[in-house]
């Protein structure tokens, strides 16, 4: 029961949506399902957030090394949550000045906005910016001409990198625009690589992915693969 009921629900939901896809009247169900899922995910925040608090409060109470950082985490979490949910420092919407709650939670100038603007944004943006360093070290470390495949990989990256700066344009600048060799100008090479090889590769990958997704979905619907339902594979 505890295992079959979910299986039935799952298969039912899946096959209904399969059929719905072909019936004009029910074609909207897909979007509705997505909407419902967002609602479930939003409710699930209670689990996630609760778990987050639990872990860090435990660390704090156990005074495990570095529990101070847990304190920081919990503090910033609760601060953001309170100002956001209670719309602290938010003035009403201009059309409805007498509705205290009508303002938007992320209104410019509100504490929530401040935390977002000067905490959330710089932190995440900087984390994102770290990529610039990692591409560099990856290029230095991983792009070694070990075999023909590797040579192709780094060769292409090389052409594109050059072709996207003045350096590349400069290097092949001596080739006149209208000569039959113009195709060898780096910027043009870049274009061909993107138009032909890149397209071919990505196309095959996408076809493969489509097939993979389809068969995985089917396996799930048929109950061949149930690991995610906690029934394991026995």
């Amino acid at each position, binding site marked *: 029961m505890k295992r079959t009921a979910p299986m039935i629900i799952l298969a039912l939901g899946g096959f209904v949506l399969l059929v719905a896809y072909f019936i004009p009247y029910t074609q909207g169900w897909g979007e509705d399902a997505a909407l419902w899922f967002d609602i479930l995910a939003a409710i699930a925040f209670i689990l*996630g957030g609760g778990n987050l608090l639990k872990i860090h409060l435990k660390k704090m109470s156990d005074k495990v090394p570095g529990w101070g950082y847990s304190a920081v985490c919990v503090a910033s979490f609760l601060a953001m949550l309170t100002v956001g949910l209670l719309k602290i420092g938010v003035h009403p919407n201009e059309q409805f000045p007498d509705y205290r709650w009508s303002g938007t939670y992320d209104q410019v100038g509100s504490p929530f906005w401040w935390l977002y603007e000067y905490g959330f944004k710089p932190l*995440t943006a900087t984390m994102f910016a770290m990529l610039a360093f990692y591409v560099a070290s990856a290029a230095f470390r991983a792009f070694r001409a070990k075999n023909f495949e590797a040579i192709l990989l780094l060769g292409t990256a090389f052409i594109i990198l050059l072709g996207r700066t003045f350096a590349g344009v400069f290097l092949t600048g001596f080739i006149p625009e209208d000569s039959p060799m113009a195709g060898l100008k780096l910027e043009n090479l870049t274009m061909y690589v993107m138009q032909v090889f890149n397209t071919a590769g990505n196309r095959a990958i996408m076809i493969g992915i489509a097939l993979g997704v389809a068969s995985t979905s089917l396996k799930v619907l048929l109950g061949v693969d149930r690991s995610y339902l906690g029934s*394991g594979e026995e």
Partner: protein
Amino acid sequence: MIRPPAARALSMVLGVLLAGPVGAAWAQEGEPAAANPPAAPPRIAAHDFLMDGGDQARIVWEQSPDDPANVSAYAIYRSRTDAEIQKKIKDDRAKFIAGRKTEATKAILGEDWKTMLDTLTPQQRIDIRAARAEAAKAAAAEFDAGAMNDPASEDNRFLLHGSTKSLELKYEVDKLDRANAYVFMVKAVGKDFSKSAGAVTDAPMSPTLEWFDGTPVQSGGRFWLVWIVLIFCGAVVFWIRHARRGKPIRVRKIAGLEAVDEAVGRATEMGRPCLFVPGIQDMNDIQTIAGITVLARVARTAAEYDAKVEVPTARSLVMTTCRETVQAAYLSAGRPDAYNQDLIYYVTDEQFGYVAYLSGMMVREKPAACFYMGTFYAESLILAETGNAIGAIQIAGTAMPAQLPFFVAACDYTLIGEEFFAASAYLSGSPEELGSLKGQDLGKVIVAVLMILGIGMMTLASMVGEQSGLGERLSAAVKFLKDVILT
């Protein structure tokens, strides 16, 4: 928003004088030739679409006598519903009155009135109020008397929906509501963009809803999709049953999958944990599900070796599911006692918050094996490089084409696209799952056949020339393949 002075000056001047002077001012660039509208299309008809959601209609009309001589395009209109007409009139009325009020205010305060609003004397306010009320009353009266208030006027009744170029005599109107009945109108647009009189459909029609989606109908809509889906699913099911009957299924090896057990084993020897990252998307993404099926295997091996698997997630639901999965895996490995749910926890939904945590955690706990299985975006390289810096074995699997380059460059093994979905089948080792791979291969065969067929016909067509009888037939066949079967 404050209008630039120029605009205000203009609308003032023009409000008072009429458009005449403007025409004069533009005379030096040559007056536009006197409007010379083409003749209207003689006949027009509207047809409902077969097999659609009841929200479309096709309009066809006969060529205007002046087409193509003096027709640059056709404009297609649909009638507004009564509700729409009422709303339009209401809005127009409000706009009209507001405009007059503003003019009245300007007349008193002058052009810079907007800047003066806060410095008005009580007396001024009283005068202005009176003037505006006056203007509003007059405007209301004028509007109600005028054509703008007439629901039957063409302008109120018809809504321009789109256009076709000259000599193109059909158009598909969409976003209709089958609860309403619509009339349609087509006007020929002259070379000088003056419009002909409208050709209007005689009877109102309302689109109907069918039980099967065949739109666009001329291309058979989703008929062919049904077949392709049936063939594909049929093949998968067939091979799964084939496997269940104990027939052997032979599939090639995938480098990297063998490495999974090896990686866990190594982590055990080194007494360090394994890190499993199920991507940053939620359970509504198949990649996450595929990743979790891999987790099932990793967790079971870990349970057998008595290694520690840590699973930080970016979504609450993924956390929940991973706990179910890992618990089950420990159960099936006969080590339910060893399962510790605190090792599977939610961090944050924010992509880079999650990554910040992961990279910090990785350098501190130094996991010996890192698995990245799921949907990844820009964070892929941050993870892979950090993992590399701490010298962990890294196995990645994702179907995000944009991120594959980084995993390929920085990880020991990468499951590329389809391989990633196949992985769960391999790892589970159950023959029936391997069966599904055969289905996928059949899909690839279909692709190859269709491609070669289409390309062959197309190439031949362009070689013999489209005009020749054979060429014509071939290109017709290609068109059918592309526009009917493959849409």
